[in-house]
C-alpha cells in the first residue's frame, strides 16, 4: 500500500488522470514520489517540463546555464516574460506557479564531464533536451554508467527523433557511434527550427518519462523518427551493439577527450 494519501485538492487537480486505468491513485502516488531531471530548458525542455509538472512528478531538476534571449521565445514558451533570466530559474518559476506539489531543483549551469554524474545520480529518469552532440553523448554515457533511464530527443527544422534508453537496452551510441563531422550538420541557428517541432518532441519526451515512471510501455530498442512537414512517422527497431564501448561496460569513466568533435570512443 502506498504511504502517500492524496489530499482533496490533489484528487481534484489530477482528476482527469486518476480516472484512467493506466494511472489511477497508485500511478499518481508513483508520479508524486518520482524524480525527473530535464537537461536543457530550451525548446524541448520548455515543453517537457510543463507536462511533467502538470502530471505531478514530485521533483523536477532543471539544468541550464544560458539566459533567456528574445530569439528563444518562438519555441521556448515556458520563459514568457523572463528575458535575461537564467533559463533553469525561469522554467522553475513556471513550475512553481503551475503546481505547488512539485519540488524544483535548479542547476544554473551546463553539464560537463566533471559534474554530470553527480547531478543526475539522485533522479529516476533523465530527459535529454540539449542541443548539441557532445552533451547528448555525455548524457548517454553518464546515464548508462549510473544505470539511470534516459529519454533522448533531437529536432531540426520540421524533423525530429526520440528514443528511450534503459539499462540493458540499446543506447544512443549503439545507434550513433559518433557525431557527424563538425560542419556537416547545420546547427539550429543555420538551419532553423520550427517551434512546433520542439513542442511535439518535448511533450513526447515527457510522455516517455511519465510512462517509464508508471511502468508502461516505452520506446525501448526503438526510435521514433518523424517529419512534421509530410506527417510521416516511422518507428524504427534498433539493436544493441555488442561492441558498443559504453553499454557493453568496457568504458567505466567519463573522459574529457570523448566529448570533442566526433565524440568517438575507441
Amino acid at each position, binding site marked *: *500500500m502506498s504511504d502517500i494519501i492524496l489530499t482533496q485538492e490533489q*484528487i*481534484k487537480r489530477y*482528476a482527469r488522470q*486518476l*480516472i484512467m*486505468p493506466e494511472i*489511477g*491513485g497508485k500511478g499518481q502516488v508513483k508520479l508524486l514520489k518520482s524524480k525527473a531531471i530535464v537537461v536543457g530548458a530550451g525548446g524541448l525542455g520548455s515543453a517537457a517540463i510543463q507536462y511533467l509538472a502538470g502530471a505531478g512528478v514530485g521533483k523536477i531538476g532543471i539544468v541550464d546555464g544560458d539566459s533567456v534571449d528574445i530569439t528563444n521565445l518562438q519555441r521556448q514558451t515556458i520563459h514568457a516574460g523572463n528575458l535575461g533570466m537564467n533559463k533553469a530559474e525561469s522554467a522553475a518559476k513556471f513550475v512553481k506557479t503551475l503546481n505547488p506539489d512539485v519540488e524544483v531543483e535548479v542547476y544554473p549551469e551546463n553539464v560537463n564531464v566533471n559534474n554530470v554524474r553527480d547531478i543526475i545520480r539522485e533522479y529516476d529518469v533523465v530527459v535529454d533536451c540539449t542541443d548539441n552532440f557532445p552533451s547528448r553523448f555525455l548524457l548517454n554515457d553518464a546515464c548508462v554508467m549510473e544505470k539511470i533511464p534516459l529519454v533522448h530527443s533531437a529536432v531540426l527544422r520540421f524533423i525530429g527523433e526520440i528514443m528511450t534508453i534503459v539499462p540493458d537496452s540499446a543506447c544512443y551510441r549503439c545507434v550513433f557511434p559518433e557525431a557527424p563531422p563538425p560542419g556537416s550538420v547545420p546547427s539550429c541557428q543555420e538551419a532553423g527550427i520550427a517551434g512546433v517541432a520542439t513542442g511535439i518532441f518535448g511533450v513526447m519526451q515527457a510522455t516517455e518519462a511519465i510512462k517509464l515512471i508508471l511502468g508502461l510501455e516505452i520506446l525501448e530498442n526503438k526510435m521514433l523518427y518523424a517529419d512534421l512537414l509530410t506527417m510521416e512517422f516511422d518507428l524504427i527497431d534498433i539493436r544493441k551493439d555488442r561492441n558498443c564501448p559504453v553499454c557493453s561496460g568496457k568504458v567505466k569513466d567519463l573522459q574529457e577527450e570523448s566529448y570533442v568533435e566526433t565524440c568517438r570512443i575507441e
Partner: protein
Amino acid sequence: MLRHAELNDSNDRIEVLDLRDENCPFTFIKTKLKLEEMKKGEELKVIFSDEVTARDVAKSLTSEGHEVLEVLEIHGAQLKGIDGWMLRVRCGR
C-alpha cells in the same frame, strides 16, 4: 423492480462510502481510489444521490475489472438514516 439490501446486519463489516455530495467525475474517482486501497475479493458499498450516477459509476467500475454485485435504492431505516442509491461492488484487482 427495487430490491432492498439487508444493511442492518451488525456483523456487516463491509465498508460504506457516502458519496451523495459528490459530482461526476469524483463519484467514480473516489470509489476507484477506495477500491485501490482494498484487496481483491473484498466488498465495498457506496451510496450515491441518484440512480443515474450509481449506474454510471457501476459501468466504469465494470470496465476497470471490478465486479458490480448490485445497484439498488435504499431508505433511511436501512442504513444509518441514509436515503439514496447504493452500489455494492467486489474489488476485482
